[in-house]
Every structure is written in C-alpha cells, then in structure tokens.
C-alpha cells in the first residue's frame, strides 16, 4: 500500500500532508489520489472499527489525517470536476452542544466521498432547511446526545417534510434507537460513524 493510504489508516496527519503532495508531484490528479488512496484507507479503518480492533480515537486520528490531505486537494479541484456520492447537511439539533460524534460522522462521510456541509451545534429546523435548500442536499443528518433534545428531531423531520424538499433524513446519537428513528419518520438511523456511511450510501442508492 502507498504512503498516503498508510498515513490516513494510521492517523498520521503530517505524513498524510507530505504524502499527498508527493502524489500530486508524481502527476496524479486529485480525484485519482482520493479514489486510489484516501477512500480505501477510510474504508479500511472503518472495517477495523466495526471488527472492534480499533476505537473512536483511531477514527478521529484517521479522519484528521484525511481532512489534512483533502484540504490540500480541494483548491486544486475545479468545480464540477469532482465526483461525490451526494451532498449531506449535518448538525447537532437545537439545545444540544455535543458534537464529537456528529463531527466524526461528518468526517467519515467526507472521507468516503460525500460532500458535507457541517452546520455545527444548536441548529434550528429553519437552518437545516435553509442549508439543505441552498446546497441541494441529498441527505440531512441530525445528531442529539440528550434525552431532552432528541424530541426536537421530530419537529425538524416534520418541518422538512412540510417544506417539500426532496431530501432523506438520517438520525443518530447515544440515546436514539431504530424504533425512535422510524417513529419520528426518519429515513435512516445509525449507531456509529462507520455504519452512518453505509446507511447514507443506501439512502442515495450508491
């Protein structure tokens, strides 16, 4: 495997940055580098996580290395020349400031080929709808850690449906269950960041 793949898999951000530059210098296009090294590395670390051989800190490290490499590639990519699996608008719902899990989901989605618009925390239903419309999102991802804020997800789902937007809605967060997700009318649920990518892919039928 190449240096960039290894750097992202092992979560070595400085090495990832130099490796991506080396790959560019060797004449590869940004899209080739992403497809050949970066996405496979994120897929591999995701598989290790699912198997219980690595843990959340490893995913955080890999996500950071991937982001460092992507930040170098992004300015070199002409609009419309990139291939994405779809556009995701993601945020932690109003009243809730917890974002470690949400940010990890955002990074994993980005690292596996989605375009991600991260709205941060304490996000109202109006902001979710506005961002989804502006970016022509395929998926809205909602996160909540608290039993006191998860009920607001239903308000958001209802508002999105009423807005007429053609968008899928995914939910996640520690106190949520698949039953809760289907009960509020969400299209998808995942219990962790790696699974979220698989669910998102299903929702956009990749």
């Amino acid at each position, binding site marked *: 495997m190449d240096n960039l793949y290894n750097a992202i898999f092992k*979560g070595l951000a400085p090495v990832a940055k130099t490796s991506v530059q080396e790959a560019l210098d060797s004449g590869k296009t940004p899209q080739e580098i992403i497809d050949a090294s970066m996405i496979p590395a994120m897929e591999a670390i995701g598989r290790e*996580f699912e198997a*219980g051989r690595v*843990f*959340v*800190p*490893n995913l*955080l*490290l890999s996500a*950071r290395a991937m982001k460092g490499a992507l930040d170098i590639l992004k300015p070199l990519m002409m609009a419309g020349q990139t291939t994405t699996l779809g556009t995701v608008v993601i945020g932690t719902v*109003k*009243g*809730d*400031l*917890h974002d*470690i899990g949400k*940010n990890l989901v955002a990074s994993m989605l980005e690292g596996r080929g989605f375009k991600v618009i991260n709205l941060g*925390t*304490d996000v109202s239903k109006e902001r979710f709808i506005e961002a989804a419309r502006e970016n022509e999102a395929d998926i809205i991802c909602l996160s909540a850690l*608290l*039993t*006191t*804020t998860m009920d*607001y997800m239903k308000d958001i789902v209802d508002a999105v449906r009423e807005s007429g937007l053609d968008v899928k809605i995914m939910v996640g967060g*520690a*106190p949520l*269950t698949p039953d809760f997700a289907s009960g509020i009318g969400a299209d998808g649920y995942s*219990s*962790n960041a790696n699974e979220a990518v698989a669910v998102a892919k299903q929702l956009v039928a990749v």
Partner: protein
Amino acid sequence: MTGKERIRTVLEHREADRIAVDFGTTPVTGIHCKVVEALRRHYGLDDHPVYVHEPGQMLGYIEDDLAEALGTDTAGCFAPKNSIGVLNKDWKEYRMPWGQVVMLPAKMVDSFTPKDGGLYTYPEGDNTLPPSGYMPERCYFFDSIERQQGEIDDDNLNVEDNLQEYSEIDDETLLYWKTVTDRAAQTGRAVVAGFGGMALGDVARIISMAIREPRGIRSVAEWYMSTVCRPDYVKELFDRISALAVRNLEKIHSVVGENVDVVYVCGADFGTQTSQFLSVETLDELYVPYYKRMNDWIHQNTTWKTFKHCCGAIYPLLDSLIGAGFDIINPVQIAAKDMDPQRLKDEFGDRVTFWGGGVDTQKTLPFGTPAQVREEVLKLCDIFSKGGGFVYNTVHNIQANVPVENVVALMDTLKEIRS
C-alpha cells in the same frame, strides 16, 4: 440498620435488612433541580427554591427532609467549589429559562450573560474572561465551551500545563472537609465524599469550565486522540496526578478519618453506547497502574470504599477496572451493548458493587409509563440485590424532562420492595 450500616453491609457483599439506596450524593447519582422541586412538592415539603450545587448538570441539592422522604441511605460531601470554580456559598435566587427559580452562588449569577438565545457562564464567575459554559435555548444545563488554543504543538507540550488545576491541599480546605464529613456522619447515613484530584482522563475535567486560562490538551477529541498518539504524555500526567493525590489523601484522611464510607475516585467514561474508547490493553497500560496506586493506598490505610463512574458499554473493561482496585462501579448503563444485568451480576457480582443500574434513564424513565418504570425497577432490584453488592440508583442522573409521575412510581416501587 442505619443507612451507614446498610451501605457498609452491601459493600461487603452481604444482604442488608433492605435494599440500600442513594440519591444525590455524587455528580453522577443526582437529580436535576427541576425534578427535585417537583419531588419536594409531591412530598409536601417546605416550598423554597432548590439549591443547585452542580451547575454543569444543574443538579439540585437533596436536603435532609427530601433525603428522608426518598429513604436514601447516603449523605454526600461535595467539593467547596462548584464545576464553574465558584464557592458554593452566598446563594442568590435566579429564574432559569424554563421558569424555575433556583439558588446559585451570587458570584455566578451576577456574571451570567444572556446572549444568542441562551446563557453564558464564566470561570470562577469572572465575566472579563472568555465564557467557559453555555446553556442554549431548550437546554437544561450548562455545557462546556472548549477553549483549546490553536493546534497542539507536540514539540513543546509540557505536562505541567495539564496539571494547572492540581495542587497540594491547603489547611482551609482540610478544615472544610473535616467540617462537612463530621456533619454528614451525624446523619447516620453512609458518607460519600468527592475529594477531587483523583480523576484520570475525565473529559469533563480536561475541558473544565472552572479554569481561568486553560493550557495543555483541553479539547475532548484531542484528549481521546492523545490516548493513542501521545501515550507517554498521558502516562506522565497520570503518574504526577496519582502521586499528588496520594499525598493529599494522606492529609485528608488524617482529618476526616473513618467518618467517610465511600470516596468518589474518577468519572472518566470509557464506553460509548455500543463500544469502548480504548482497548483492554490500553486501559491496562495507561490507566490501571495509576488507579491502583490511589486505590491501594486507600485500601491499605483506610476503611473507605472506592467508587468508579464509567458510562457506556464497558463489559470488556470490567475485569481490569475491578483489578485496579475499584470496589464500586457506576452508573451500570444497562441499555448499552453487552451490559445485560443478569450477566453482569453473575460474572462480576461477587467482586464489585453495582451502584446504579436501577432503571434505564435513556428510555424507560423519561419516555415510559409509570407501570413500565415499576416493572423495570422490580426486575432490576431482583437481579442486582441478591447477595448484596448493590446500591440502588438510576442509570446516571435523573434528567429535567423526566415526568414526576415516573419518578414517584420509581420511589413508590422502592418503598414497596423495601417495606
């Protein structure tokens, strides 16, 4: 039996005259002030604003009259300063965004800044500093604002920076602990003390709302990554913390003696809902030696029992935590993966006391019916209480949105079991 005798008995893995119960003696076995107010009204107790001793989670103080009504067997001794770093004194009324009037330290109340639809709070109540906590609209407590300054410069990381909130205990604080533990012991209930200074890697402490100008690693994600990419730094930090903790424990023990029954050691969470934050090997290498240093000192020099809080799916880690010398595990998150109550009791029940696990607080307590609460409490008490080794508490604090009828159903069921 007195509360103290009852707790002591179950901690020795023998059955007491009835199930032992704790409500409100730690930052993780408490009740939100909104529910404390509702319970005071339900039991017809004196109608006055609830004192909030832990503003990070807005936990209400369980006064003696309510402790009696709830039948709790424990008396809590909290640190002199709250989680914002303000002394819990000079109380002042404040109307929270949900309409409830509570008592908070005046220094904190006077520094509050309403902004962006929420409420900002400041380290030590000093609003000339950047805010360290925020309660957004629709939220019922203050959450920490991360104040990590820029990217970590690994070449210049200095463990002293992550030790800035740790110090040798002073005479004034020793006198405080003597006073509050003496008073708690007079209740006849078991004394649970949170002396502080013993937490290893508790992210709530890492991003502390109390520190004026935080230095070192102060972001939650950065901390978790450090357990993988900076193990030597983490070990050095834990070595320094645990060595200092033992020196402070010696001094504390010399003034409080055996008035204390249980000491809250550490609240670091190692579990997510479905997994862990580290492997067994990493726990054994990074944490266990330093936990052991503190727990061994306590066991060799006192009659105190040691309390470890650890949320999440921690079944694979329990052997190591017990091996590190913890007598008590909390909150026993039964809804997390592989945390089946019967299996926990069968495999670990003779070696550790489960302090919690008495009802699921993610689903049943906030969203279930009173009948479902009753059914779950009966079932869990039946499983956990056999042979002792169980102190009743919910899985973590009772949150603000829990219907009071569900809390009353819980309390009534406990009374029924204990009568």
